[in-house]
């Protein structure tokens, strides 16, 4: 009986078998890398907003406090976004004819809120709460980055579970005195190590339970 395959087919078969495995591994590698990459975690991307609101301008240059606009941040889970009236406390008198602000004026007239595109968002199976972090000395800057340098809002961190845990495993190096949590570009004082140690006790931070699954998945 004549041979069906030429001798060289052995090589091809081997190449295909090994190649398939290598390709499979590569796909897994690339994929696991990708989902953690900035492309998938949406870090440093600014979505198009109905009004190009600039934190650099309002926070960096004018020095307006976060709480003027994000009033819920000290008392509730959600920081909240400013109502149209809040913009109008100033823009009823300044930049009143700017085209950029036309959607704000329309929103005030019609009562329909501005539809801001959300920059941060956790899946619904994760529970997050702003108030506890603020009261336990975790600063806006630690999680949201240099907001006062952002002409358009973007994510500074991935918000993956690994990122949350990197702090929950050892919160101490990330703490500040609660009075300083709204400050941007905060310079720690000389004796910060001692301050942080005492903060754990003074604020009653329970480091033993902070990585329990039910803290974030309830």
């Amino acid at each position, binding site marked *: 009986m004549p041979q069906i395959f030429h001798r060289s087919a052995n090589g091809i078969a081997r190449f295909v078998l090994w190649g398939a495995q290598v390709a499979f591994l590569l796909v897994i590698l690339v994929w696991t890398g990708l989902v953690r990459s900035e492309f998938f975690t949406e870090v440093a991307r600014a979505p198009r907003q109905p009004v190009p609101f600039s934190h650099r301008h309002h926070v960096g240059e004018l020095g307006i406090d976060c709480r003027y606009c994000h009033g819920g941040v000290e008392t509730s889970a959600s920081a909240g976004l400013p109502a149209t009236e809040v913009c109008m406390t100033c823009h009823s008198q300044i930049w009143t004819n700017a085209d950029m602000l036309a959607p704000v004026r329309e929103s005030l007239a019609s009562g329909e*809120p501005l539809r801001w595109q959300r920059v941060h968002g956790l899946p*619904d*199976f994760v529970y997050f709460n702003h108030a506890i972090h603020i009261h336990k000395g975790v600063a806006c800057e630690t999680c949201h980055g240099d907001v006062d340098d952002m002409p358009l809002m973007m994510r500074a961190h991935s918000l993956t579970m690994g990122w949350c845990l990197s702090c929950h495993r050892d919160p101490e190096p990330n703490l500040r005195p609660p009075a300083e949590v709204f400050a941007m570009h905060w310079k720690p004082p000389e004796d910060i190590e001692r301050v942080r140690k005492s903060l754990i006790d003074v604020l009653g931070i329970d480091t033993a339970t902070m990585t329990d699954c039910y803290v974030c998945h309830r």
Partner: protein
Amino acid sequence: MTGRRLALVLLVAALAGCDQKMADQPRYDPLEASSEFPDGMSARTPVAGTVARDADLSATPTAMPFPVTMKLLQRGRERFDIFCAPCHSVAGDGDGIVVERGFPAPPTYHQPALRAASDRHIYDVITDGYGAMYSYAARVPPADRWAIVAYVRALQYARNAPVAELPAQLRARLDGEAGG
């Protein structure tokens, strides 16, 4: 036999179609948009005239209802710096940063008319707004409004405090600065 196998294949296919949507559950998050209402908001505003169950229905006091403690003043200072200082400036002179950028200048707190104004007047200005100034009632609850009133009073007093009433330490500093 083939029937069982077919059923198994169908079952697996059906399971794959099961999407539990754990990441986007059928509920509204705060601020989430809704297609159910014409204005697109999932959070509804209460009907006009709604009274909250725990609402305080007693008449608004005409004068400061709390003892003026250091704690109240500190709270007042914090809230004043957040909500009022952008226009009125941290010292109450009415030349805050937003005024520098073209907002109509508010009057200084240190003029006689506002020094003579009642506590309740300042409270009402925060609650209802005044001329070009919008109401801050939505963001400053009543207790905080009184704290701010107390702090505005402290700012006004600071410009007129008799030197004799200063603590010794501050007086020494003042004398030093005046002398040097």
